[in-house]
């Protein structure tokens, strides 16, 4: 039939546009590489055992070499292996924070934008308050009151992150609320749930996905910053931020100990940012930070 063929060609066109966008392609390649590295870390890591508190005094502070591409740390563990496992932590952090914050923020944004009235007032004032608190400060406060660990750090970040998605979805919903197809759906008697999730939400998806991609980079960076400050992941779990913090003690002689995990953070953050920028061009969405 003609229609599926046409849709296929539309997909091919999108792919064509995507493949012509160097930013997007490089970003996608980096993200894919990092995800694969994290997923297959146990297979790829030359020293999978070095994830934990293994000590090998003979191998302490070795510079990068063939057997240790990123060198070794102060207790003789292979930094490359630990970076691969560190990506697992970073990506899980992003997945959990965004996996909770995005659906939550989206639903609130839809409700505030579509219903207006008191629900709009309450929700949007709440986002104003949440936006006034820097995530790092929030995380510091939460981990100070509770205890410094990954769960609490994620909790703190999640508690603020939804607001950005609420704002984004709210502004799109506001413009779509009186769009003819939404009004037509109301007239034929479609349910509110249908209008919110089937008529409006699909039109927010490209903007949300651009934002989620960019967010991954930010959340990973924020998580690393918290770990660097000793408020996130606790040793011996391999975390990029913690590794930078521990390695920083051995500067400048053993520079690879903080620099390699630092570059790993830069690499993944850059990947998500490039991909997000590329998707923004591809989807032609504006106003997404």
């Amino acid at each position, binding site marked *: 039939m*003609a229609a599926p063929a046409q849709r296929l060609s539309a997909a091919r066109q999108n792919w064509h546009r995507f493949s012509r966008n160097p930013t997007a392609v490089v970003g996608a390649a980096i993200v894919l590489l990092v995800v694969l590295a994290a997923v297959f870390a146990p297979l790829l890591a030359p020293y999978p055992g070095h994830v934990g508190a293994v000590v090998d005094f003979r191998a302490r502070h070795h510079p990068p070499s063939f057997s240790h591409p990123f060198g070794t740390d102060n207790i003789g563990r292979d930094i490359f292996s630990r970076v691969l496992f560190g990506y697992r932590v970073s990506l899980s952090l992003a997945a959990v924070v965004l996996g909770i914050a995005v659906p939550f923020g989206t639903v609130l944004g839809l409700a505030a934008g579509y219903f207006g009235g008191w629900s709009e007032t309450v929700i949007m004032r709440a986002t104003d308050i949440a936006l006034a608190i820097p995530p790092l400060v929030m995380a510091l406060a939460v981990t100070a009151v509770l205890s410094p660990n990954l769960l609490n750090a994620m909790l703190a970040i999640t508690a603020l992150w939804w607001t950005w998605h609420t704002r984004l979805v709210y502004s799109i919903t506001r413009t779509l609320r009186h769009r003819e197809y939404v009004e037509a*759906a109301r*007239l*034929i008697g*479609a349910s509110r749930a249908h209008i919110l999730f*089937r008529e409006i939400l699909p039109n927010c998806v490209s903007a949300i996905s651009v934002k989620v991609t960019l967010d991954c980079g930010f959340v990973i960076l924020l998580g690393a910053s918290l770990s660097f400050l000793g408020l996130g992941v606790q040793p011996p779990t391999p975390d990029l931020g913690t590794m930078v913090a521990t390695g920083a003690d051995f500067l400048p002689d053993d520079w690879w100990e903080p620099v390699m995990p630092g570059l790993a953070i830069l690499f993944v953050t850059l990947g998500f940012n490039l991909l997000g920028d590329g998707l923004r061009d591809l989807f032609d969405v504006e106003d997404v930070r």
Partner: protein
Amino acid sequence: MSDSPLLELDAVSKRFAIRGGIAGSVRGHVNAVRQVNLTVQRGEVFGLAGESGSGKSTIARMIVGLLPPDGGTLRFAGRPVVQSRAIQMVFQNPGASLNPRRSIGQSLSVALAAAGVARAARRHRIADLLGLVQLPADTALRYPHELSGGQKQRVAIARAIAVAPRLLVLDEPTSALDVSVQAKIMELLVELGRSLGLTYIFISHDLSLMRNFADRVGVLYLGEVVEIGTTEALFGRPAHPYTRTLLASIPVVSAAEARLRPDIPLIEGEVPNAADLPSGCVFHPRCPYAFAPCTDQHPAFTRAEAGQTARCHLLAGDAASVHDMTTREQPA
């Protein structure tokens, strides 16, 4: 009971706040629709004509229940108007009336689901509906961006009739389309109206279209109905000077018509807007026949002929005066 009107508007008004400034404070109001009275009989095509900004869409949105009036009442089959499947609308802009992220089949399916059609029967009914609006059945698999404006408007019509409405409000259904497509859509609407027993409210600024399609016509000027009459009366002997100026802009069919055609010297000047209404008769600043009462007295509806009334001071004394004044000087 059956000859009571299907729709009645009684002194319906709507005004919008104009917001501006940093705090978004209200700076004034647009009186988009003022004191509109009209009745629509079962099975008729009621035309609503007027320039851009005269309040046509605002009236349409109040009729379908998307917008509450600020004053007056709207009654449908004797009851206050509420949003219901019995009253549907085809929107002005076909580009925005279908969800770009949903296939045509999905869009129609929602309407059928809302009308209580069982899931199993929907696929079949979608094909039927597409057939009714003369589109191939595989249109269901397509997305709006794959369709032309005319095809989109056909889908919008199919969606509206899917819920078996009694009244269909057509808000300039063809103004965004090519003339050739326009004619086909109008034909389709005429046919559907007859076969489904629909009552139409047909909104347009295109008077030749109006003349061919409508049974009765109301003319809007700055949110006010200035004249209502049967198509025959209104186009044959327009009673309100504004109607006459409107008619002067449509192509004529015969030499006899050309002779009847008024040559109205419209007064130059700014067209007043609904935010800053003139006193008295709203048309007086542009009316070549304006006289003393027009500047400060709002004219009441006056019967011009059988089935034709207009808001004009000229009619108060002698029903034929406008007509006479405008044709007198014409070279025979």
